């Protein structure tokens, strides 16, 4: 139905266009218009006026939409560094919006003020070094300020993760995420892409690393509120990118080159449900690097718990190998013994 309407609109526009064009060419012929001075006629004023009009309509719509839909486009923030980047974002936004409006006042009203008049001459003003200097220095200072503020935040975000932290391994694959926790010992075991098969989809290397034996791979990510969380990110086939919109976290997952990102969640899922008034609210993990036909479907739910709930959940998890006992055989017996399995 919508398509039919669209086609109808196109047809109507086409016919309308043909009619208008015919009228225009006919009036041109009727007036025997020549190219040159006469060309600068009423349409020059109309065009000038339209710029002025567009200024009010454009910025009116901009202001109206920006004010009325804040709850839609502003994502609630739930991480420590996110508060800081958001602050810088809106600070920068205020500066550039001001610049945008100022430039457009000149750009859209000059046409109106200085539209062609037969008896006027343009003002001869080829250069002024002082003005050039001013508008080189002012943007330079403003940008320097933004760079410095950005540097401080960027530097803090990219510092090595604190020792006291929760580690989660996130692996991207076509087309889903898989996560792994260190289990009882808290250490995530080594992996090898050659060990991957249909069942051991993360390629846990039981032969060489007994730390794998207590690792568990839940279907949702659980992280504790208020504790630094280090995501150890990898990909097993093509590039993916870990995107946690509410935590302002993004880092590519690269085959052959493990990456990482650490952050501190500040609101539990429960608190967020209250804040947004949405009982079904969930934090989500999305992919932001094109990875194939299912790129848009790589979703995983992230749950932020109170620290004690997190501990409880963590303790309840069953190690992966216990559900896939065949892989236990790969481990050298002495290693198994040494680890009390």
């Amino acid at each position, binding site marked *: 139905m919508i398509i039919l309407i669209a086609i109808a609109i*196109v047809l109507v526009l086409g016919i309308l266009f043909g009619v208008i064009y015919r009228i225009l*060419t006919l009036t041109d012929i009727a007036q025997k218009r020549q190219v040159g001075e006469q060309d600068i006629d009423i349409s020059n004023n109309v065009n000038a006026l339209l710029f002025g009009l567009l200024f009010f309509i454009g910025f009116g719509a901009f202001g109206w939409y*920006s004010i009325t839909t804040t709850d839609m486009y502003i994502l609630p923030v739930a991480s420590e560094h996110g508060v800081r980047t958001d602050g810088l974002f809106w600070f920068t936004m205020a500066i550039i919006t001001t610049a945008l409006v100022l430039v457009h006042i000149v750009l859209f009203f000059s046409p109106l003020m200085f539209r062609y008049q037969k008896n006027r001459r343009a003002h001869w003003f080829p250069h002024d070094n002082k003005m050039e200097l001013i508008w080189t220095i002012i943007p330079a200072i403003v940008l320097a300020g933004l760079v410095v503020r950005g540097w401080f935040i*960027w530097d803090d975000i990219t510092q090595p993760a604190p020792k006291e932290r929760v580690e989660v391994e996130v692996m991207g694959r076509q087309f889903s995420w898989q996560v792994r926790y260190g289990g009882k010992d808290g250490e995530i075991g080594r992996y090898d892409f050659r060990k991957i098969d249909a069942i051991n989809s993360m390629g846990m290397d039981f032969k060489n690393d007994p730390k794998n034996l207590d690792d568990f791979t839940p279907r949702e990510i659980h992280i504790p509120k208020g504790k630094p969380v280090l995501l150890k990110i990898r990909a097993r086939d*093509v590039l993916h990118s870990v995107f946690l919109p509410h935590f302002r976290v993004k880092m590519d997952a690269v*085959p052959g080159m493990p990456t990482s990102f650490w952050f501190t969640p500040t609101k539990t899922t429960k608190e967020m449900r209250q804040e947004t008034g949405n009982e079904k609210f969930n934090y989500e993990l999305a*992919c932001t690097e094109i990875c194939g036909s299912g790129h848009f479907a790589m979703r995983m739910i992230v749950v932020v718990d109170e620290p004690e709930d997190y501990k409880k959940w963590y303790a309840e998890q069953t190690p992966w190998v216990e559900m896939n006992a065949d892989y236990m055989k790969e481990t050298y017996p002495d290693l198994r013994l040494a680890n009390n399995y």
Partner: protein
Amino acid sequence: METIDTNLSKTQETESSEIHHSHEEEHHGNFWTKYIFSYDHKTIAKQYLISGIFWAIIGGSMSVIFRLQLGFPDADLTFLKPLFGRWITEAGKLDQEFYLALVTMHGTIMVFFVLTAGLSGTFSNFLIPLQIGARDMASGFMNMLSYWFFFAASVVMFASLFIETGPASGSWVAYPPLSALPQAMSGSGLGMTLWLVSMALFIVSTLLGGINYITTVVNLRTKGMSFSKLPLTIWAFFLTAIIGLLSFPVLLSAALLLIFDRSFGTSFYLSDIYIGGEALMNTGGSPILYQHLFWFLGHPEVYIVLLPALGITSEVIATNSRKPIFGYTAMILSMLGIAFLSFIVWAHHMFVTGMNPFLGSVFMFLTLIIAVPSAVKTFNYLTTLWRGNLVFTPAMLFSIGLVSLFVSGGLTGIILGNAALDIQLHDTYFVVAHFHLVMGAASFFGMLAGVYHWFPKMFGRMINEKLGYVHFWMTFVGIYAVFFPMHYVGIAGFPRRYYTWTNFDTFNIFTDLNMFISAAAIITVSAQFIFVFNFFYSIFFGRKAPKNPWKSNTLEWTTPINLGHGNWVGPIPTVYRWPYDYSKTGAKEDFIPQTVPYSETPESNTKRENELAKQEDTFYKK
């Protein structure tokens, strides 16, 4: 005709009669040498322009198809089945991978085939010889080769649209491993091979053209045309060609290594991969290497498409403001600055790829520096308009539109160039909004401004300006209606290259806004057909153009209305002054062409120019 380019490098004045003679002969050339395998820079420019329009229609239509999916996800697209066959599923939906193929092809076509070849190819070819006072390019033959390599690239790329596994679909940046492994998606099979072949041919074309542009500007300027008297268009084309010459070879190397990885079992970009049920043997490669190589071209590429547009705008705004461009030297310096900086900002595309964060800090600093020369250019445009006597030709409207788009798209670059802010916004619709405004739409507007402005010179007829007005206002408002709302979508975190967002609670909003964007896109693309009609109709039936319709100062308007190969009948004019003597204090008319000596304009000369007038006799006789 074959001898003409060897004559060109000699002193043109003395040999003009001989050249004129061969130029007469050229008219007797047959259809093939005159229109197809022509050496004439003007014909080659038109070939580029018409190819560009062809590609723009295809690339634009593709965006309509995928906008249908994004704006009207429930629509039944079965009516497209005759065109797309099995790419439309039984349920009347766009195939998921075909969606990505459309996005990929839209990007590739628009960036390379429309905005690089169609814009730079058209106007560098057309304007360089005409505005510097040369009879043709330094090498007409290489120039012809350049077009035909581009044509070959076009044929290969066009053919790839029709193969069974579909065209390349790993996005226009073609990051490996996705683009390297046919197992990863079907578009990475033959489609990707053809994409790489086409790009290699395209790069050859660009290099052949670029060498020619540089050589011509350096060597073939007419008497008196010093670099300080060059129109800003030529400065822009000159710097663009230099950027292209330095950066495109790097893309070729990136593409070559990718070809090796795909076909010869090397591991430049591949490591530790398990796909399609098997672990590949590749180890030690780095996908990040490709990204560095790609963006070493990819970022300068932004300026390769933008600088010519800015050059055209400078010329059009000065002419139609009847006022000299403000800060001619500052304009050149800022273009030089942009050209230099464009090479050392590439990694701002890679802040979140796992690159060393310290590198991120460096590139963030360099990136934000580039905003300074861009700001200078903007303020100079504004000051040029201020207290002018503005004539709104369609070209002028598109130039003013360009400045607006350049500013609104450029400002968000200050946000994206900031590594700390890029974390959240990287690969969201905020980026899509940003680069479509600043690079896509702004360059496109520059191209349209150029076509409207030089149409009389190209075809000897006027293009209908009323239709031009309609075209401009629909396009200008349409572009903003399409891309401005995308900022909101981006701030809300919507990722790019998503077939649909409904899988996520977080992104399950803005359906109405996406519908609005899609409707606006359809209208905007439709409005381009007004231009296409106007363009082809006016070539044949437009009003006859006068010699200098815009009362412009530059050299091309001193040529005959219907100019043949060789451009000027008789000697090439000598240049005495810069191209921006509009509304000069004391002058009779509001413009003084570059060919008017200072000795003929004592009423408007400054003291220094009176000095120059005295030297003219001795200086120009040498």
